[in-house]
């Protein structure tokens, strides 16, 4: 049974907010979670303000104590599994008796649990790459491809997932990453097309592009706007539009280059 002081409560809320936001949770959820956590620790008057690129929180229990912190968020990616696990942790915390700042878990324990979630094992790399192939292959079938095209789309999906992983190591920005990804989809599809006769490129390229389409930004933009978080809603909508433009530009340029080359 240890009390959690205001610095630690702020730190824990910020950490939870950072993890949720970096794995792509909606603004409303991040704010609610952060408020809930500091309420559990006994700080009732907490305000959190979250945008896609930064978190502001001020934790206070009464007029005497007030602690405000800001954290900048970078490197956003999609990790829905992490969102689920953090949410479970928070609701667990809420259920266990935690009256007036006296908690069974100390701040250090809680931070250790969060770090555990943060560093939890992903699927092995070969498995996610394999599933990238499965996704693009099945989308190819869905849009009316044949079995031969399924095989080619499968190979393209695997190659592109691999390439995206390698590009991710370079830490280039999202826009450039999508341009390069789309360009690579077209390149791989064309290269395989040279060796294999009688396949239509359209479905294969669409299958590959579906791997890059900004579904999460799009859904989050809508949900944010609906819950009244206009700043993040607009920012995420613009992000989705930019990614869509990047995909179109990348694949377009590459198709044109191949055409000029003479294939």
């Amino acid at each position, binding site marked *: 049974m240890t009390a959690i002081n205001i610095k630690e409560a702020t730190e824990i809320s910020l950490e939870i907010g950072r993890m949720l936001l970096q794995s792509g*949770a*909606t603004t409303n*959820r991040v704010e609610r979670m952060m408020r809930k956590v500091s309420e559990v620790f006994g700080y009732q008057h907490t305000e959190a303000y979250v945008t896609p690129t930064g978190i502001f929180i001020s934790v206070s229990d009464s007029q005497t104590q007030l602690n405000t912190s800001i954290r900048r968020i970078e490197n956003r990616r*999609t*990790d*829905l*599994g*992490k*969102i*689920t696990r953090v*949410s*479970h942790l928070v*609701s667990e915390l809420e259920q266990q008796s935690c009256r007036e700042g006296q908690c069974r878990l100390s701040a250090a324990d809680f931070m250790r649990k969060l770090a555990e979630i943060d560093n939890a094992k*992903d*699927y092995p790399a070969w*498995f*996610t790459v394999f*599933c*990238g*192939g*499965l*996704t*693009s*292959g*099945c*989308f190819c*079938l*869905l*849009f009316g491809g044949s079995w031969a095209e399924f095989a080619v789309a499968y190979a393209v999906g695997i190659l592109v*997932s691999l390439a995206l992983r390698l590009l991710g190591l370079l830490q280039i920005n999202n826009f450039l990453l999508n341009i390069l990804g789309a360009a690579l989809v077209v390149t791989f599809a064309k290269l395989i097309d040279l060796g294999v006769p009688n396949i239509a490129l*359209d479905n294969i*390229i*669409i299958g590959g*592009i*579906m791997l890059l*389409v900004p*579904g*999460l930004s*799009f*859904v*989050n933009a*809508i*949900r944010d*706007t*609906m819950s009244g978080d206009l700043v993040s809603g607009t920012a995420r909508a613009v992000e989705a539009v930019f990614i*869509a433009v990047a*995909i*179109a530009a990348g*694949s*377009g340029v590459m*198709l*044109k280059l191949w*055409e000029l080359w003479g294939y």
Partner: protein
Amino acid sequence: MQFIWAALSILGFSIRVNLKGWKILLLALGGGLSWGLYLIFLYYSNSLLFSIFCAVILVCSYSEIVARLIRVPVSVFVTCVIIPLVPGSSLYYAMQGFIAGNSALASEHTYKVLLISGTIAMAIAVVSSVTNIMFRLRNRF
């Protein structure tokens, strides 16, 4: 058959975004449902936007219910199940039209992309507002 392809592709997608356990099977079912419902509505109504609207509404209701039952954030579910309906193919054809200098084709498909994404947005908004209201009413009484 189409149902299975959609389900399998969502299975792959949900593993790529690092979800674990048997809930990815439910997600795959949702993805399959969204495409299947879309095809059924398209067959009976012959209207692209109407069928997308109805499919998204039904699938979002499905995911609101199932996500609450298995205690997963709803947005996680909704994101994954609408992926098959996202207009990736129209985006590609629009781009191809631009490159070929065929602006009629290009603008037709760009228009389609905007309309489809607008429709999906509207359907998601409707479902999430309705569930919000339902929860508020249930809390009051």
